[in-house]
């Protein structure tokens, strides 16, 4: 589904990713871990098409097609979804309005007609139950005045409604208490299926207690310094990043 080959990216001439190669297949869950400043979030954002990052070398193939020339909205329409580390507040745009506009934009790409309002509301409400969100939040402005936990759950709700083929979660666990973490993990697990893939970017191992990854990669200084299975995450939890980080220097 996704092949990243020798990816180099920089922002304002500062190189952040220094040759990442990664292959993600359908049905897999990959965890990208690493210390602060290792380039994890950069990788997530580059995949979603954030324009401030320049790809200076390497390639990203998604479903056999290069992503590099595609606008963020084109990537979204091809099934890529990024759950933001810091979800944006948009006063004046209601949550339900954004969900519906996004949902219909994806349907339009597939040549489907716009969804019926009642039908859509029922669908959204069912997904909201999965992440235990108060239905009143639908009519509030996007993320405005939401608590940290509500914002992250809102990201998961959007993901569940849009049903992406490749979901990238950028530190979705940060700032969550254990109950909220479980709810978010439950939502992510609900998306898991043999034809979808998930990339979890996280600093801590604890999210991986609830979403078990098939592969764990450790990023340090812009390179993948170690890859393994779920067991690797436990080792990192015990020994920290200092040992593996040295490899990348």
């Amino acid at each position: 589904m996704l092949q990243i080959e020798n990816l180099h990216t920089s922002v304002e001439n500062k190189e952040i990713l220094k040759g990442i190669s990664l292959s993600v297949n359908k049905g897999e869950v990959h965890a990208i871990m690493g210390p602060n400043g290792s380039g994890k979030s950069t990788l997530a954002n580059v995949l979603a098409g954030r324009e401030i990052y320049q790809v200076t070398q390497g390639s990203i193939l998604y479903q056999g097609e290069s992503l590099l020339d595609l606008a963020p909205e084109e990537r979204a329409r091809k099934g890529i979804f990024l759950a933001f580390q810091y979800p944006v507040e948009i006063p004046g745009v209601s949550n339900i309005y954004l969900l519906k506009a996004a949902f219909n934009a994806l349907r339009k790409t597939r040549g489907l007609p716009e969804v019926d309002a009642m039908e859509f509301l029922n669908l959204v409400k069912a997904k909201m139950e999965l992440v235990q969100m108060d239905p009143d939040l639908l009519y509030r402005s996007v993320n405005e005045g939401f608590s940290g936990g509500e914002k992250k759950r809102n990201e998961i709700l959007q993901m569940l409604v849009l049903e992406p083929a490749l979901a990238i979660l950028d530190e979705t666990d940060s700032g969550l208490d254990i109950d909220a973490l479980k709810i978010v993990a439950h939502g992510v697990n609900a998306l898991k299926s043999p034809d979808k893939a998930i990339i979890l970017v996280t600093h801590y191992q604890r999210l991986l207690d609830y979403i078990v990854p098939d592969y764990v990669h450790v990023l340090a200084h812009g390179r993948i310094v170690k890859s393994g299975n779920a067991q690797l995450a436990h080792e990192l939890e015990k020994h920290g990043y200092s040992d593996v980080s040295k490899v990348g220097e």
Partner: protein
Amino acid sequence: MIISLQQYQTIYHNFCAKLPGNQTTWIKELREQALADFLQTGFPTTRNEEWRYTSLRQVEQANIQLTENTSPPLLTERNNALLQKASCQNQLEHLLEWVCINGQWLSSPTTNHSSTYSIQPLAELLNHQPECLVPLLNQTFDLAKHSNPFTILNNALMQNGVVIQVPENQTAMIHLIFLTTPTATLQASHLRNLIMLGKNAKATIIESYVGDDTDNYLTNTVTEIQLKENATLTHYKFQNESKKAFHFGTVYVKQAEPNSQFASHVISLGGLLSRSDTHALLDAPMTHCLLNGLYNLSGNQHMDHHTSIHHLKPQGTSQEFYKGILDGNAHGVFNGKVLVYQDAQKTNSQQSNQNLLLSETAEIDTKPQLEILADDVRCVHGATVGQLDEESLFYLRSRGLEKLAARRILTEAFLYDVINRMPHPALREQVKQCL
């Protein structure tokens, strides 16, 4: 006298016999005094602080004739389309809609209102019952102190408009549509509206100014409003003139009795060069004033909004919220004054102006001003100028929305609170559709 002003003298002398009310001495004197004042001062230059960012050179140099009210107004297909677009007849209940084309009221306006109030064309009163106008005309602001040259010119050349009187305890809901469709020459309409709400009266009055985007003309409109005790007026002004037109409009409000409430909603979209003024005199205790406005301009449009709120007596409140979106080479001006005089203790005033610039060449000059002479008041004010938030734009695009759609959603969201402050949902929808 400046040469370019001479045309105004010529216009007056050519038309003075036809100007309504000129057979009555005091009206003729009023007009001629105003003309003399105007000819003496002329159009202000940008050295005048009140006109610092709005140059009137184009207006000064243009050869602008007065609209002649001879034949009955023509309802062409094009005019009909413009009127239909402006109409709210089907959206608002109990609405009386009057249409004025080139300064002339359509002969048979929809008149089946319950006559709980009176509405009459100004020209008719000027000609036949001028004495009725004594308590209404030039009774809001002392023009010697607030000398807007267009108001003075309006006194000299006013042709038509409307006089609305809502008696004690009565209600009214009125939409006035002013359509200008010029003939060959560049022409001006000088309109004057006089509104009086009696004790406990409650009214919504909408003024719409419309024209075809290919037409150039000048509108000079002055509305004077007086509110008696506990009267409530919601006043909308849709400025949707031709993109080639000049529009100068001033609303003067006098709240000289306690507990009256004035809410103004200004929607400015049209005109090549325009200025909209709103001035409120809160001259009684416990009077309240809301000035809510939005402007959306692009291309080479120049749009100026000047407001002043005069708190003269204690315990008044005022709120002012103006928001603007500017694109292309557009130039906007906002100047909002709040004046709290010595007697106006316990005044509570809030003012803000926020602007969104969508291009690097758009420009806004904003100046919120606060002058306080009383010592026990609460006043806040501020202004901001910003661009579309890149982070929000990326967020929406990452959800599959096209760049243009995302920009549109964010600009609409920027105006959301101003639009939502308008109390009529049907009008909110109409505003959204015009953006």
